């Protein structure tokens, strides 16, 4: 017997079977260390029924993939659909999903709780009392659609496009809604990004044109994380599994976090700097690298815009690279380890060790900042910018084990009937003059801007978003939402009751992850994938031969999905096509009829996803059938250094190379299956488009920045009023020691717990049981200093607008002199309202003048419902809503809300009760005005008479003319 021959025979058999898309080894099996049902048996999968234990009762399932709709990671799920009852029985991971690879965090399986939540909203509701009174009547979808459509149609006919606004939380989808808004011609896309990740994004954007990092953790030698948010709770499943792979391969993990996070517990270096000093540390590391020559000179020479810097800043147009290196040393000489130590409170020798460790990474340096310091501090955008500085020095951008730009690790297919139009009006409630460089809409200033500018929005959609609870200064939001002079009709599209929906006119029930269509793609490793979210019961019934064209037919109650909703609404806005928007939602095959969701996605999968038709064909499926069966597809892997790619000859026609080596061509843009990107680079004076950049005589793709290079020095910042910040530098935070009174401490509010996701997961009983409260982290030294004796003692936390009363958690897991309080918790419903019982306290809301108070009347506890588990709720403490006491802190450049608070901590007063909140909204407005004073607006500083640099990212980009500042710029109102 020849064992090698036998081994080869088995290998060949396995290859052959798996090549057919089947599984050679039966599974789930202990043999090949996998735990997933083989995909060829997803249609009829047998498991023992857990509830029948110890009897062995077999249950038959259809396994239908979908995509999680909790955080933005878009991990793959497999819904186990009971073949007898056609109900979902559980959710597990989808092994075919390239990002999550079959693994999920707790939030994925807890989708089961969300779809069976006994308190979920099942029917469209319309307000019948005053706004916020809590009186509702059930209405039909037709009535709601007709009413809303009529208002929008009227607004469009009267050229009031800016009075239609769509405010989205985490979108959980790519392209559908922005396509719709572009088709409507509405500059009304309002995202939550400026309370989330804009700070860090701005830092990345100024460097490389793209605004997010995609670290290749699994292949890194050194991983540097500035993320109390991400790796602990947002993308943490796809990232955490790869960070652990990296660690297993020997990578060193360096975590910057003032608090001992889950990720920090796994770190080789856990550094807890004084909040806001992170940029000082990175600059010290960079300075050391520069001084010691520990950087990739060739990379810097080829890819930084150092010539532009030497010309414009140093006045030396012909300077050599060596001249630049000398200038670089000079620029950063003052950023010593001792300086960073003084700012951060860390030991200088430790920082030296960290620098030496980072320097060992070479091109395998994976770095990441999402929220955390980037979103906590005034100037937080420079944290990400100085962090990427280290990658730019080591040449570790878009390398194996390095840090990729998001756009190269993400794939958004081109949709059918892409609207080639842009809104004509500029919405300056969302994009106000004072914040021309804001990365995204100034969403959290909406109530303040509306008040200041007498703004009005006729139709305001909040889509799975809860600004009253999430945003700072929430009582200002309540004031705005209740005021008919500000909001004509507020339509809350949500699967679950939330604090914002209480102040709506319509509540439209939308599906959870197994009840809706969406297409997603996120940067999670060096590859590109798409994930398909689908109503799983619709897919299951279709497998059984039924034809389901309306998702409401399979969803609980009258719960709908947005895709079909928007198609229907658009048709009612423009029933005869006279507004010119219906055409984008007409069938391709049957013009004059509505486009179906099957047609929309089927067209994209057929025409816009390379490789998918071929993969589907191998299995005898259409691309849409393939995605309905497997839920995800990997478009490419090992994307690599796109900037180094040579521009092909076919794209070089009548080429012009300018004095900055930027290369322009008359050749048209080659057809691409991808949706157009968000960056727009202006053509040259003769109308040629920019195609690349010349480096050492070769024409390379380069970067989507104004120079085509990595922008070490930003002309944009320089020319738009911020020359002192045009380089990666250090900005002292608003909670820097010098800005605090002696009795104030920084309050860190940006961290999350891994089993909750903002306000979206409240109706998941399993998650609530694990995490339902948010005590104040306080170091024992601080607790002793302010007189807090024990964990659990009530503490009054005073901010600039009011206070909240919370319980203390005395722990050494936080830096002395800093306190921290997580969000997610402190959810509430006003007395007398319908609403979520799981996880929501009942509160009394009172207002006297500008003074608001919130007092808890009833906390958590057991309650009767259709789910017997709700009688087993043993916890009563539901946390405190701290965000109400936060004033708005818009960073004057990135526009990011700077979350960290300057707080005073003291034991609660005798009359204080747990969960009390007290706020003076006048103080909140004064804070808005104070921060406004820091801005340098477009009218005063625009170098070219425009509102915003045209090249910068902008969702639903208006037409070019709308970028021009109005002639009487000083009086710019909401209509622009």
């Amino acid at each position, binding site marked *: *017997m020849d*064992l*090698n021959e*036998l*081994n080869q*025979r*088995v*290998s*060949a*058999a*396995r*290859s052959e*079977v*798996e090549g057919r898309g089947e599984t*050679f*080894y*039966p599974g789930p*099996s*202990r*043999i*090949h*260390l996998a735990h997933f049902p083989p995909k060829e048996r997803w249609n009829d999968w047998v498991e023992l029924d857990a509830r029948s234990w110890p009897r062995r009762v077999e249950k038959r399932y259809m396994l239908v993939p979908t995509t999680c709709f909790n955080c933005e990671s878009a991990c793959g799920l497999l819904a186990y659909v009971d073949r007898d009852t056609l109900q979902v029985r559980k959710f597990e991971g989808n092994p075919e999903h390239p990002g999550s690879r079959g693994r999920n965090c707790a939030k994925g399986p807890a989708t089961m709780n969300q779809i069976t939540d006994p308190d979920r909203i099942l029917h469209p509701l319309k307000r019948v009392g005053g706004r916020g009174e809590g009186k509702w009547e059930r209405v039909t979808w037709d009535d709601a659609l007709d009413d809303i459509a009529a208002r929008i149609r009227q607004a469009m006919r009267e050229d009031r496009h800016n009075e239609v606004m769509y405010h989205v939380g985490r979108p959980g989808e790519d392209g559908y809604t922005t396509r719709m808004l572009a088709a409507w011609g509405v500059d009304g896309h309002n995202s939550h990004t400026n309370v989330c990740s804009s700070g860090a994004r701005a830092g990345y954007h100024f460097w490389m044109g793209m605004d997010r990092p995609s670290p290749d953790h699994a292949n890194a030698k050194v991983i540097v994380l500035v993320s109390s948010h991400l790796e602990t709770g947002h993308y943490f499943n796809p990232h955490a599994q790869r960070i652990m792979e990296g660690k*297993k*391969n*020997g990578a060193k993990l360096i975590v910057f976090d003032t608090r001992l996070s889950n990720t920090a517990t796994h770190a080789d270096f856990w550094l807890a700097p004084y909040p806001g000093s992170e940029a000082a540390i990175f600059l010290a590391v960079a300075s050391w690298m520069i001084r010691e020559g520990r950087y990739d000179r060739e990379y810097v020479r080829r890819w930084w815009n150092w010539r532009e810097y030497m010309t414009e800043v140093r006045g030396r147009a012909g300077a050599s690279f060596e001249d630049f290196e000398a200038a670089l040393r000079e620029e950063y000489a003052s950023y010593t380890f001792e300086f960073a130590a003084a700012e951060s409170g860390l030991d200088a020798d430790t920082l030296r060790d960290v620098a030496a460790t980072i320097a060992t990474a070479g091109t395998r340096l994976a770095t990441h900042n999402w929220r955390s310091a980037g979103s906590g501090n005034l100037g937080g955008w420079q944290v990400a910018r100085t962090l990427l500085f280290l990658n730019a020095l080591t040449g570790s951008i878009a390398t194996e084990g390095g840090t990729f730009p998001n756009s190269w690790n993400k794939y958004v297919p081109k949709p059918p009937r892409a609207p080639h139009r842009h809104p004509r009006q500029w919405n300056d409630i969302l994009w106000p003059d004072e914040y021309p460089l804001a990365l995204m809409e100034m969403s959290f200033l909406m109530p303040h801007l509306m008040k200041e500018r007498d703004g009005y929005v006729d139709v305001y959609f909040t889509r799975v978003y809860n600004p009253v609870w999430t945003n700072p200064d929430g009582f200002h939001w309540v004031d705005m939402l209740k005021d008919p002079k500000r909001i004509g009709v507020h339509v809350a599209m949500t699967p679950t009751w939330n604090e914002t929906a209480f102040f709506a006119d319509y509540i439209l029930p939308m599906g959870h992850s197994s009840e809706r269509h969406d297409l997603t793609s996120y940067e999670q490793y060096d590859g590109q994938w798409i994930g398909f979210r689908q109503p799983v019961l619709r897919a299951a019934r279709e497998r059984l031969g039924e034809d389901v064209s309306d998702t409401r037919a399979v969803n609980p109650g009258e719960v709908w999905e947005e895709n079909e909703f928007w198609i229907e609404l658009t048709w009612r806005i423009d029933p005869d096509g006279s507004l010119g928007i219906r055409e984008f939602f007409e069938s391709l095959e049957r013009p004059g009829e509505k486009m179906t969701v099957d047609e929309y996605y089927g067209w994209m999968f057929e025409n816009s996803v390379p490789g998918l038709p071929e993969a589907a064909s191998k299995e005898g499926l259409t691309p849409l059938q393939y995605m309905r069966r497997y839920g995800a597809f990997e478009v490419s892997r090992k994307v690599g250094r796109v900037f180094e790619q040579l521009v092909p000859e076919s794209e070089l026609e009548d080429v012009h190379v300018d004095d900055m080596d930027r290369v322009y061509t008359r050749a048209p843009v080659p057809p691409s299956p991808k949706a157009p990107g968000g960056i727009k680079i202006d053509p040259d004076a003769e109308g040629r488009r920019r195609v690349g950049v010349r480096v050492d005589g070769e024409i390379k793709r380069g970067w989507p920045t104004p120079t085509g290079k990595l922008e070490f020095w930003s002309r944009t910042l320089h020319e738009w009023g911020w020359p002192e910040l045009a380089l990666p530098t250090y900005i002292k935070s608003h909670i820097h020691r010098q800005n605090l009174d002696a009795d104030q401490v920084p309050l860190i509010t940006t961290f999350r717990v891994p089993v909750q996701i903002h306000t979206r997961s409240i109706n998941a009983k399993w998650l609530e049981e694990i995490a339902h409260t948010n005590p104040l982290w306080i170091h024992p030294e601080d607790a002793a200093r302010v007189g807090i004796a024990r964990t659990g003692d009530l503490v009054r936390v005073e901010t600039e607008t009011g206070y909240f009363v919370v319980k203390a958690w005395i722990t050494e897991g936080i830096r002395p002199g800093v306190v921290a309080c997580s969000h997610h918790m402190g959810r509430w419903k006003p007395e007398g309202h319908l609403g979520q019982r799981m996880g929501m306290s009942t509160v009394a809301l009172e207002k006297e003048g500008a003074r608001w108070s919130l007092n808890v009347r009833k906390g958590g506890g057991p309650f009767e419902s259709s789910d017997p588990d709700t009688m087993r709720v043993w916890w009563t403490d539901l946390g405190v809503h701290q965000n109400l006491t936060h004033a708005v802190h818009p960073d004057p450049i990135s526009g990011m809300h700077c979350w960290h608070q300057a707080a005073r901590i003291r034991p609660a007063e005798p009359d204080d009760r747990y969960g009390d909140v007290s706020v003076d909204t006048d103080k909140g407005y004064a804070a808005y005005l104070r921060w406004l004073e820091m801005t340098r607006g477009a009218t005063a500083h625009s170098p070219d008479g425009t509102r915003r640099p045209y090249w910068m990212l902008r969702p639903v980009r208006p037409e070019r003319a709308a970028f021009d500042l109005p002639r009487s710029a000083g009086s710019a109102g909401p209509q622009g």
Partner: protein
Amino acid sequence: MTATSSATPAELVRALAVLTEPPSPDHARVAEALGFGEIPGSSVYTEVFLFQLFPFASVYLGEEGMLGGEAGSRIAGFWSAVGHQPPPEPDHLGALLGLYAALADAEGARGDAPRGVLAGQARRVLLHEHLAPWLFAYLSKVEALAGPFYARWASVLGAVVRREVEGEAPFDQDLPAHLREAAPLPDPRTEGSAPFLDGLVAFVRTGMILTRADLTRLARTHELGMRMGERRYILEHLLAQDAVTVFRALAEEAGEWTFRHEERVPLLGSTARFFADRATRTAALLTSLADEGETFLTDEFAVKSPQGGEEPT
């Protein structure tokens, strides 16, 4: 497909591992690739792996001769040490072979990189500590007891493991921890009958694997009544009927095991010597007990009163 080290036929190991599971139609293509012919019915599997030869390392490496125990914990610890969550039955032969193949894959994929070297070391430890000490004895019993399908399976697996061991020469290192920790068969005259009976079914203490089939054969040969149950229970009742005869028959069996182990000394070195020594000691103790006559044995191994409801079979 995963990369594999050139030495270890990982795919073959994985395929053989699959066949330690109860047969299902899904096994057909694996069996076909191996050239084993048709999958046998589940009764054949049950007879071999459930009634005669449990495919769990702890049964053969633990002092109790039963599932789990310290040997099971030690193996679970090994899974953790190599970075895997221990599966529900970490010492199942299929799981161990699956792990072995995975480590070989990792070793092959990463070559001389530190992770590859570590995977290779882990694979060798798994072979030395948790597979080789019991597998040759076990597979020889399977070959002797089972029908053609599983005999063929045992023969190929035996050849694979032999080649793996030969490839790791010199294999004669320290004794595996399971063996270092295991006490020999206790003397019932000083330790009592219960520990003695417990020990008789523990391979690591006696050096011999006693199956139900062995005990049935013994009963038939000596015309003793057979009460079906666990091996310990069967032994207890055989000894109660005619202890001297049973001791002599078991001593003879142990003697044969001594020879089998000695034959493996060139391959397994100290491990084989350990088991040969155990079998020799077992044979000596059993002979001594038989020579002492039946006086104390009658008392020690008296059958419980039939009025207790138990009937001889």
